[in-house]
């Protein structure tokens, strides 16, 4: 018999490591996996095979998924186009609309805290001769409607503004944007990856014309997403960006990823029934985490409007502590940081910088992303651990010591390197 090492006792409901990075991806819900499994084995048909039962079976499953997704966002099944994920959906929406409506105009409006899948697509559009306006955000992370109104001109064909931000969880005034766009006869696309399944989304009430969503952010599988494309009032047309068999009403060729699509549909179905309760639970846990951190630590900064905020998101800067060193100290907890040291580009988060925060605040930021499978015991563990490590690192921080002594760090002549 092997020796059993004594492990430090963890509270009930806590199993390490703790996953609290649900904006990056979410675990697959076991109910989703169950729905998907037959489509990897017995039900392997190609949904485009029209002449035998294998194809019909797959097509039927895809149609059900289309229905499930449509219901979650107030659309109809025919308005759902399957893609490989939200990056593809965003590319297809912006490039496909740009190409299709080129004769009407060449101006696109977006904003600075969009995901790179939108920003870099827009940069590509600029190279192709389109004009792009990148609206700023205020200190809360929200765009100003007046800025949007002023940016619109007679060449504007598309407004692409995300529903909720992946870093700071801030929810943009989507319904107002949609209303304005419809009044002006401009198409409105929204990257709703972080919003769908988490907060109510209704494409008709909010006047959304095109919407991107993803499977793996809502406890579904990776590698599958969808694009909602409005069919009536107005009928939106999108130029295909990939040539092939003309699947998905000619907008997106390629054999359908049937297991993935079944999973995406199942994930949407679960969200539709459980979203309200889940959002209330996540908000309560997020607030508990926030209050614990706020009451035990000084020099903290909340990033993004807390009023217009996703339930499971908390983005907080622990000033005078560098984010990567904090992550290193809490290495049994999976969260992420806006610190340059944790990014591939060695640049601090452009989203936090867009709020007007100094680089030092961005370097100190941690994004907590609570999700369906987190427990209150985990929240308490995370809060205690973060408080402990922040305090330890502040003992090591010359900046904290100087700030405590009342030195104005902005007046120090730093020797930048």
């Amino acid at each position: 018999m092997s020796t059993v090492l004594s492990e430090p006792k963890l509270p009930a409901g806590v199993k390490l490591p703790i996953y609290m990075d649900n904006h990056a991806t979410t675990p697959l819900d076991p109910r989703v996996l169950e729905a998907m499994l037959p489509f990897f084995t017995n039900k392997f048909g190609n949904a485009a095979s029209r002449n035998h039962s294998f194809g019909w079976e797959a097509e039927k499953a895809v149609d059900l998924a289309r229905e499930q997704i449509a219901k979650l966002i107030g659309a109809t099944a025919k308005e759902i186009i399957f893609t490989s994920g939200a990056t593809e959906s965003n590319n297809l929406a912006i490039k496909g609309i740009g190409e299709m409506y080129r004769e009407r105009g060449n101006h696109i409006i977006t904003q600075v805290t969009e995901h790179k899948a939108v920003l870099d697509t827009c940069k590509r559009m600029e190279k192709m001769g389109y004009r792009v306006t990148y609206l700023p955000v205020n200190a809360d992370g929200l765009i100003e409607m007046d800025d949007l109104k002023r940016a619109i001109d007679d060449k504007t064909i598309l407004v692409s503004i995300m529903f909720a931000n992946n870093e700071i969880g801030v929810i943009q005034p989507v319904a107002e944007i949609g209303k304005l766009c419809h009044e002006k006869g401009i198409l409105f696309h929204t990257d709703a990856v972080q919003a769908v399944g988490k907060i109510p989304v209704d494409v008709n009430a909010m006047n959304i014309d095109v919407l991107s969503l993803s499977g793996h952010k809502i406890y579904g599988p990776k590698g599958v997403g969808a694009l909602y494309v409005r069919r009536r009032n107005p009928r939106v047309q999108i130029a295909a960006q990939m040539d092939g068999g003309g699947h998905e009403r000619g907008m997106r060729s390629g054999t359908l990823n049937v297991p993935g699509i079944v999973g995406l549909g199942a994930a949407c179905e679960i969200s539709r029934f459980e979203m309200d309760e889940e959002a209330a639970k996540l908000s309560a846990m997020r607030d508990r985490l926030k209050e614990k951190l706020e009451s035990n630590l000084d020099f903290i900064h909340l990033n993004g409007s807390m009023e217009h905020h996703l339930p499971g998101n908390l983005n907080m800067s622990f000033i005078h502590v560098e984010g990567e060193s904090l992550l290193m100290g809490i290495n049994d907890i999976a969260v992420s940081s806006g610190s340059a040291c944790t990014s591939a580009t060695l640049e601090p988060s452009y989203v936090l910088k867009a709020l007007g925060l100094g680089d030092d605040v961005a370097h100190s930021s941690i994004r907590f992303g609570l999700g369906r499978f987190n427990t209150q015991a985990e929240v308490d563990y995370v809060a205690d651990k973060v408080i402990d490590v922040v305090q330890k690192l502040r003992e090591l921080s010359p900046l904290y010591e100087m700030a405590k002594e009342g030195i104005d760090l902005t007046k120090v002549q730093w020797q930048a390197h």
Partner: protein
Amino acid sequence: MAYSDKVIEHYNNPRNVGQMDKNSTEVGTGLVGAPECGDVMRLQIKVNPETRVIEDAKFKTFGCGSAIASSSLATEWVKGKTVDEALEIKNTDIVKELALPPVKIHCSVLAEDAIRAAIGDWKKKNVADGQAVSTPVAVAAT
């Protein structure tokens, strides 16, 4: 990113954390880096005026684990050395000792800068001994 065992060890048990009287003539203080760059190191040395041996060293660092480890190691290495010997410490020695990956080399550079700045500050305070002062010093302009 995976950290080397030595970086983790210094991060968990940083050596010589603290502060010395920066106004003492025996103490040299180096404050290098900038908050907006994500790392600031303060390294202090206490030098015996007779032997020019660094008898004590303290640091505090705002930065990633590698920056903390680099400055912690720097305090260990300068202790017991004369100021001239300490100036021989190269960032590449720190990289090697801590097995720093390429993206973290700047942490070692900063630690070398901190040593030089601390020694420079000490020399500036002790110009009477005739030593030329060549190392630039960063001192908080409070």
